[in-house]
């Protein structure tokens, strides 16, 4: 029988963190920010069916980056938690803070006790009843939870994107401005992201009880490149 080599706990944690970071950095980033009437999440996502952004409950949205199967499992768990809670108590008793805490505990648990950490970072956004009570909870792969102000950046290359976002963010801006800026911030200079590579969804105060809504590709086109969006229409009418 061979004796296992001694590895210090510091080294174990460092290796795990590095492993998770590498996994996350391979994926593309997403940005979530507040605007005058709600919260918008913009993700770079070439797939039309494997979603990064999802509805959790009336005023709560979820977004994940990293390994799809891992954050999708967390997404479904969030929906289950919210629906069970809303059914057992009342729709008003479902709130993001407790869900964010559960996510943090689970991610922390997996990070310290399992062989492999989850290669994901998630965003739990909650629309407040008043404009300044919106919340963005950013939860990292090891269970660190951050209550972000104004905007959150998740995924690979976040340092650069966060810096760009810090410069571009304007308090109380309109949805169209927010989307345009988020796309520009994600793409960076010298690169263009088309609407087919984007997934955009909002929690909007004017949407009624279930405030989550996806923005269609046509609508994104009309916002990020109004000229291009108008062109195919005129050519098809000929």
């Amino acid at each position, binding site marked *: 029988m061979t004796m296992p080599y001694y590895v210090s706990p510091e080294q174990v944690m460092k290796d795990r963190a590095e492993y998770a970071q590498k996994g996350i950095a391979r994926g593309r980033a997403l940005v979530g920010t507040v605007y005058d009437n709600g919260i918008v999440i913009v993700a770079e996502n070439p797939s039309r069916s494997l979603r990064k952004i999802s509805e959790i409950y009336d005023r709560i949205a979820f977004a994940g980056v990293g390994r799809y199967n891992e954050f999708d499992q967390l997404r479904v768990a969030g*929906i289950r938690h919210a629906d069970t809670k809303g059914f057992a108590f009342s729709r008003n008793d479902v709130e993001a803070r407790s869900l964010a805490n559960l996510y943090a505990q689970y991610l922390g648990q997996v990070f310290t006790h399992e062989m492999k950490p989850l290669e994901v970072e998630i965003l739990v956004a909650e629309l407040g009843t008043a404009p300044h009570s919106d919340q963005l909870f950013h939860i990292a792969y090891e269970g660190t939870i951050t209550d972000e102000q104004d905007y959150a950046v998740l995924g690979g290359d976040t340092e650069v994107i966060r810096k760009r976002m810090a410069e571009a963010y304007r308090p109380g801006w309109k949805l169209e401005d927010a989307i345009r800026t988020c796309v520009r911030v994600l793409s960076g200079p010298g690169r263009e992201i088309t609407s087919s590579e984007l997934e955009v969804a909002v929690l909007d105060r004017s949407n009624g009880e279930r405030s989550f809504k996806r923005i269609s590709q046509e609508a994104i086109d009309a916002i990020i490149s109004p000229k291009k969006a108008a062109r195919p229409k005129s050519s098809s009418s000929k």
Partner: protein
Amino acid sequence: MSLPIFSPTDDPGPNFMATLARTYQRYPGWYLRGSGMETMVGEPDGINSSLPSWTGNRISDLIRHGTTILALRYRDGVIVAGDRRATEGHLIAYRNMEKVMRVDQYSAMAIAGAAGPAVEMARLFSTQLEHYEKVEGVSLSTEGKANQLGQMVREHLALAMRGMLVIPIFAGYDLQAGNGRIYTFDVTGGHYIEGEHAAEGSGGRNARSVLKQFWHAEIDRDAALALAIEALVEAADEDIATGPPDTLRGIYPIVATITSSGYQAIDDDETASLVHSLYDRLQTRTETGERRWPR
């Protein structure tokens, strides 16, 4: 509460009832198990000698019951309606009951029978539809929704046999087929699609007679709404458990339309005016000798 994460081999999928069962070790029909109701429900016909004597030892006298509900198809979709009365035995228990409930954007459920379990069933059903939609990213088909509700009715069979019968009507707008759909149910969970109209509950038989006489395939919104109101008024005229429109308190039947643009509850002002114009018509009919009632 912990995060409800399951192993892939034991995952309840988009089924909310299965998730509930795993989370709470309870299942629809939990009214029976460990809820105290098993002591109350005695014989299969709902007779229990330990009940107070004024109830005649009948369970149904202790439990709130909803009565007449109906649905009819019309040109743009489907209309669902119900009276407002709930009874406990021969007493009026509640005057404001809402027996028609929106379950999602394109469907509604109306309930007749034991009110407690019926409302709980409606809540469970609507949560199930929303849960499926969020987990899967698409809505259930109209047929899928009716099937789900049928399963819930079947889960309730044991209690139904002990006097706590719940009979729903499910109505929805099928976006793919582009028309309104009505489903009725029996206690065993069987669900049956109705091509024209349906009525359930104690006054259902009377309501159905009215629908049968005046319904036609091309009926438009206004005529269909008037017909729904007339059917409910007729039911209330014959059945003590069905409440007539209460003009004194301003309590009118709950009526909703479901069309390609979704579920729309008819507001009280419109129902009130429908009721009053029906009363005017009945008055004229009586005066001209065209029809006898009201005497």
